[in-house]
């Protein structure tokens, strides 16, 4: 995997930690940069034997996490970036997404499946991340999300 300095900026990868694949970069553009990260991750997952269902789940969770970082964390401020990092191994993978916003308390997000919220058109991203990832952690002040996916 090339770590050439095309967008997203600062992309770097290595095969440290046994045969685990690591990659980190700074995302500035919600379109192209996210596509690039998804392509890099998809290739690494395939090489490490993640099946279609796993790759689909991880893609969705990453999409939701990064979009939340841009939209809710950075409030779509173009001067702010989303920091992405991952370590993809044969048995499990770790993904970090950190925005440059003030953070939030994930426990205050209303449950979108409750009757009174079901017709509100937002608030499902975190729920999907939790549904598809094995473990999800928010580091205080809440602008840093860590997601772990273990092969079942």
């Amino acid at each position, binding site marked *: 995997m090339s770590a050439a300095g095309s967008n997203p900026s600062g992309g770097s990868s290595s095969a440290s930690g046994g045969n685990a694949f690591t990659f980190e970069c700074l995302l500035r553009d*919600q*379109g192209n940069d996210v596509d690039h990260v998804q392509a890099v991750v998809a290739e690494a997952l395939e090489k490490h034997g993640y099946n279609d*269902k796993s790759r*689909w789940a991880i*893609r*969705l969770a990453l*999409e*939701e996490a990064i*979009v939340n970082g841009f*939209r809710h964390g950075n409030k779509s401020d173009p001067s702010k970036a989303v920091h992405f990092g991952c370590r993809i191994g044969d048995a499990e993978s770790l993904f970090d997404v950190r925005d440059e916003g003030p953070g939030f308390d994930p426990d205050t997000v209303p449950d*979108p*499946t409750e009757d009174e919220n*079901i*017709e*509100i*058109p*937002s608030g*499902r*991203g975190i*729920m*999907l991340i939790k*549904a598809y990832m094995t473990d999800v952690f928010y580091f205080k002040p809440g602008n840093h999300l860590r997601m772990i996916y273990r092969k079942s």
Partner: protein
Amino acid sequence: MGSVASRLNVRVQNGVTRVEFVDRNILDETNIQQIGEELARLIDGQVNPKLLISFKGVEHLSSAALGTLITVNNRVRSKEGQLRLSDIDTQIYEVFVITKLNKIFKIHETADKALASFA
């Protein structure tokens, strides 16, 4: 903005406006916003709209797209219309189940079954 390519394939069949997506992945926020605007125009142009949205060929869909579908559903209902969804891939259907949106949308296995369900 007249030169922007439509993200929807639309045809009318037996009084039902039948919509399919151009994109395989409904993830990009700009595209989702455009899809929402196009669907809103379709709904607003009809009295008691009958709208069938087929997901044939759609492989990925984000929560932002779900949000747009909820807005579309509310809009159709406010015009006393009917909305049906069809041809949803198994993995995407699981997203509807997780979010319990399978309970608010009328989802059919195929477009033909959905067409037959309109009152």
